[in-house]
């Protein structure tokens, strides 16, 4: 209890703000905890909040030599330019379509997978399937791109070997805009389907077995059991993940798209993130690309709030 009295003595000596003497006394008494928080808070302040405040350059004619304080203010000039920019519609369209495809095709598959796994009777088989399907999650996008590149190579790829064997013409899949979105969605499913099913598998495992027992007594077959017990049981998890996905509609996954993208596929694949990297980082158009980033963040935030409200009204599930 020695430290307690020392703390008290220090508290008495301190000349904190007279308005709230209790506040400083409290902080001082528990100073060990607050000191531990200093590096963490500093980290979030410098690397998360500072760039957020740095986004003011979206309202400036930012000049790297003049800095944040020296650059001229231009109001909403960049946003106006952005919304009237001919490429903007293409970026917005590609971003939204890829996200929409992800929600329609990639989002339901882990749910289906979890439900199928839930019906498997052999535990050993279930475990083997899980082990295989979780693996791609840990393989980097670079490697996934490499695998796809080899598989789809027009000269040596396995897919084109098959096309050739059936008498077709070989196709340079990665150079064709019409295949780009399909490749992005498929490779995304390949990588994340298994991993994303974990949450649903856990939700299914958490359902009270007595419910199934009772349903069987009432003569419900497995399909009926699935429809009336399993599905409602995982609905909360589905809603929460769907909301998070909707909040990220404007982020299309830079790491993935950037690697698959090339000038031949800009038409269907160039999204906000890839454009921001090209125009902002590589060409130094800092202000307008920050305006894009800010636009994305605000839209994502608003969508998340709306999705949460809609979900609360319809299913009673919400993030907060």
């Amino acid at each position, binding site marked *: 209890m020695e430290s307690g009295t020392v703390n008290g003595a220090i508290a008495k000596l301190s000349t904190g703000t007279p308005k709230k003497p209790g506040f400083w006394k409290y902080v001082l008494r528990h100073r060990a905890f607050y000191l*531990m928080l200093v590096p963490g808070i500093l980290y979030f302040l410098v690397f998360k909040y500072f760039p957020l405040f740095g986004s003011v350059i979206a309202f400036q004619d930012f000049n790297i030599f003049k800095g944040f304080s020296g650059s001229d203010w231009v109001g909403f000039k960049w946003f106006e330019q952005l919304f009237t920019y001919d490429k903007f519609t293409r970026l917005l369209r590609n971003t939204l379509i890829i996200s929409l495809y992800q929600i329609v095709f990639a989002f339901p598959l882990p749910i289906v997978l979890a439900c199928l796994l839930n019906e498997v009777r052999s535990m050993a088989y279930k475990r083997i399937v899980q082990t295989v*399907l979780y693996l791609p999650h840990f393989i*980097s996008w670079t490697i996934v791109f490499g695998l796809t590149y080899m598989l789809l190579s027009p000269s040596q790829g396995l897919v084109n070997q098959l096309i050739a064997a059936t008498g077709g013409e070989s196709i340079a899949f990665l150079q064709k805009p019409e295949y780009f979105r399909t490749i992005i969605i498929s490779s995304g499913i390949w990588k994340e389907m298994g991993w994303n099913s974990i949450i649903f598998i856990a939700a299914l495992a958490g359902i009270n077995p007595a419910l199934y027992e009772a349903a069987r007594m009432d003569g419900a077959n497995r399909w009926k059991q699935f429809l009336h017990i399993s599905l409602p049981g995982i609905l909360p998890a589905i809603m929460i993940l769907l909301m998070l996905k909707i909040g990220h509609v404007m982020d299309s996954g830079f790491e993935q798209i950037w690697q698959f993208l090339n000038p031949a596929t800009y038409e269907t694949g160039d999204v906000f993130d890839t454009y921001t990297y090209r125009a902002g980082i590589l060409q130094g158009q800092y202000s307008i690309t920050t305006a894009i980033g800010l636009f994305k963040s605000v839209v994502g935030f608003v969508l998340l709030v709306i999705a949460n409200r809609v979900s609360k009204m319809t299913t009673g599930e919400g993030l907060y």
Partner: protein
Amino acid sequence: MKIRRSWGEKVFDSANIAVLLLFCVAVIIPLLNVIAGSLSSNEAIIHSQVKLWPVGFNLKNYEYVVQNGVFWRSFGVTLQIVLIGTTINMLLTILTSYPLSKSWLGGRKIILLFIIFTMIFQAPIVPMYLLIKNLALLNSIWALIIPGAISAFNMMLCITFIRTLPEEMFEAARVDGMSEYRIVWKIVAPLIMPINVTLILFYAVGHWNNYFGPLLYITDRALQPLQLYLYNLISQFDMDSVGGGESLLELSTAVTPQGLQMATIVVATVPIIIVYPFLQKHFIKGALLGSVKE
């Protein structure tokens, strides 16, 4: 308990097993295709004879990867980032999580909100890039370590876990005269070992697979980590950045770009594939903890 299955159920069960098998095959085929190619002869690759089994088995491609100094330099850079980065990640995550696990601590809610907000509302890339530039961290491995020092998500997992430890234990330690810092390192850190393993894995795999960071901040070839090297190798096959140029030209009859690319992909994936089966259950535990809603 044996339940009699109807004819329809039997059909469903078989179909179910078949569908799941199909998923597994779809995951394995691209991997097998690249492994087979990397072990095949030059001629077999050029004449597109390789499918899922090596044709004209040889290890030539691997010989070049093993001798390629630039590849190993990138491998070393990545290894360095994984080791230093994960250490810093863990120290800061545990240090920040411990006070925030105390529900009685004044201001805890505000600080948590302050941190969670960064998960929901992310700063645009360009100001982040300018910050790193102004801090003179461009072309330094610290640019790949410090900006991701704490993952808010992993920190939440850690807080959730620490909260399961009984407060009486901390009280007892305090009565014994232990300072809070000693409590963190001597009591909390060892007791949360299961979550430590999970977080170390998440952070380490994150560093190993990081590609966006190096793309933004690293232009110096001597500092390019493995993923950036792989990207240059696969999408550009640019001799300068790929390395091993001279020996490669000399023996260009022995290896093809595809063969070399495939062998490099395999070598870069092997570390993950080797550790994965042993650590799978820890990964899953982490993924499940994330779904616990407070």
